[in-house]
């Protein structure tokens, strides 16, 4: 008879664990209930992948037993943590593992697009960079060099150079249009760097910290009162990860949906033009499960006249991931995940709204190629772009 395996549940002294990643895990005790595995979108397409198994291996193997495949297959979407009875921070655990194992792995993180996007972030961390990142701003839009409100564009000006199948700059133009309509002239700075999201989640903490410090410097020096971004990843990073590196912000960090909600409530912004569309909303993991902002985007959708908004079956903390996290995992299995989510969306509506430019890119990429199974016509729209349409 084999001896039963005992998992050290909730290790009493976190400092006793030598590995930082294991400490993260030990703050809560995994009870090996396997709920995470059945919530995991990766498990549905790859039965061998199981967060529970990874945790078990991490404990038994002294912290070095997570295989490279398991390490990079995780989307860090946080669906496992949302259903976990003891709230084991699995995405944070994976992130720390990636940081630790990045140097000893056979090859670098599998950034898709041949490492291009990772390299853009690396270049942004260089000191003497003189960017010219405001080319996408068209005529008739007002931006300033100084002011109370910063519009943090994120990697949006760079995305158009990589992803030809979707116009990412239209999100930026829509955001500026909305702010201009409410009498705000936002600051769009050439000093802005990448927010460091992909660097941090792909295990390059050094790059992330350099970027965070460089960004914090110009943002704080500008003396602005608030910072707005239309990207879920930038919002989560600036609001929740930056203070851990640079200390508390002297300004308010807002997602575009929060700003629109505030402006509508104050009566500074009115949606005059009906937008007669049937839409559903995809919760981006960084805005939803990571930053816990579920209501603001829905309030914006409800404020748009003529719009019919229906919820999908899996929403809020149970929302399904777009299939790619931090551009590190996209393969044939991703396509099955995207097919599943898009089928769900198409059964409810003909437009899927998302508040993250990256969700939009990943879903548009899928629709641009050849779907696994035929899909009813479905369009992916960004929340900010949709709101700008209602301005008339």
């Amino acid at each position: 008879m084999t001896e039963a395996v005992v998992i050290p549940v909730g290790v009493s002294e976190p400092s006793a664990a030598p590995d930082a990643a294991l400490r993260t895990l030990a703050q809560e005790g995994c009870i090996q209930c396997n709920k995470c595995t059945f919530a995991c979108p990766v498990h549905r397409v790859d039965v061998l992948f199981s967060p529970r198994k990874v945790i078990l291996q991490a404990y038994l193997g002294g912290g070095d037993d997570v295989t490279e495949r398991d390490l990079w297959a995780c989307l860090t979407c946080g669906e496992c943590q949302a259903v976990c009875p003891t709230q084991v921070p699995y995405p944070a655990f994976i992130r720390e593992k990636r940081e630790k194992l990045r140097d000893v792995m056979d090859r670098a993180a599998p950034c898709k697009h041949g490492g291009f996007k990772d390299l853009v972030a690396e270049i942004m961390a260089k000191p003497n960079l003189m960017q010219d990142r405001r080319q996408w701003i068209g005529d008739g839009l007002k931006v300033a060099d100084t002011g109370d409100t910063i519009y943090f564009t994120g990697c949006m000006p760079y995305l158009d150079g990589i992803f030809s199948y979707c116009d990412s700059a239209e999100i930026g133009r829509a955001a500026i249009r909305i702010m201009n309509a409410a009498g705000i002239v936002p600051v769009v700075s050439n000093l802005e760097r990448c927010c460091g999201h992909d660097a941090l989640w792909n295990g390059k903490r050094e790059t992330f910290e350099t970027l965070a410090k460089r960004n914090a410097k110009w943002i704080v020096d500008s003396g602005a009162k608030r910072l707005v971004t239309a990207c879920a990843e930038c919002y989560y990073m600036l609001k929740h990860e930056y203070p851990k590196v640079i200390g508390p912000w002297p300004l308010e960090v807002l997602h575009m949906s929060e700003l629109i909600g505030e402006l509508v409530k104050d009566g500074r912004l009115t949606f005059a033009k009906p937008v007669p569309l049937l839409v559903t909303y995809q919760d981006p993991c960084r805005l939803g499960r990571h930053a816990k902002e579920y209501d603001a985007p829905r309030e914006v959708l409800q404020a748009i006249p003529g719009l019919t908004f229906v919820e999908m079956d899996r929403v809020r903390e149970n929302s399904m991931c777009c299939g790619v996290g931090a551009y590190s995992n996209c393969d044939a299995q991703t396509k099955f995940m995207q097919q599943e989510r898009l089928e769900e969306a198409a059964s409810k509506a003909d437009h899927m709204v998302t508040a993250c430019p990256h969700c939009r890119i990943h879903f548009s990429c899928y629709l641009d190629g050849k779907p696994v199974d035929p899909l009813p016509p479905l369009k992916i729209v960004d929340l900010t772009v949709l709101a700008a349409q209602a301005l008339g």
Partner: protein
Amino acid sequence: MTWEPQIAAFCCNWCGYAAADQAGAAKMEYPAGVKIVRLMCTGMMDPYYVLRAFERGFDGVLVVGCHVGSCHYKSGNLQAKEQLDRVDRVVRALGLGGRLAMTAASAAEGNVFADAARDFTEKVRKLGPNPLRQAVPA
């Protein structure tokens, strides 16, 4: 030591590289800062190569392929053109506008390669050293 523009020249095996070879065989002079990397076809010109060259401190990136219609693989040069036009948007946003160029030289056009190398080097010289280079020689 004076600064000489360092150019990464990505040449296709069938035209660009042969042209560079011909330029050498005919003893034509072109700037010594032009460093040649041979690719089978410019169609395999990964956007990553362009950014990597800049990240490593090259002052310019020149891509030399076949003339339109004479690609050894039918359409590699056209694919490269399309790809590089897109990458150029990223390069310009990074403040490196004008440092990426594509040209064509057939296998017999050593002089075209040498002229392109000279002209591009002069163009880059006007732009100054790559700001991404950590230590710029005085």
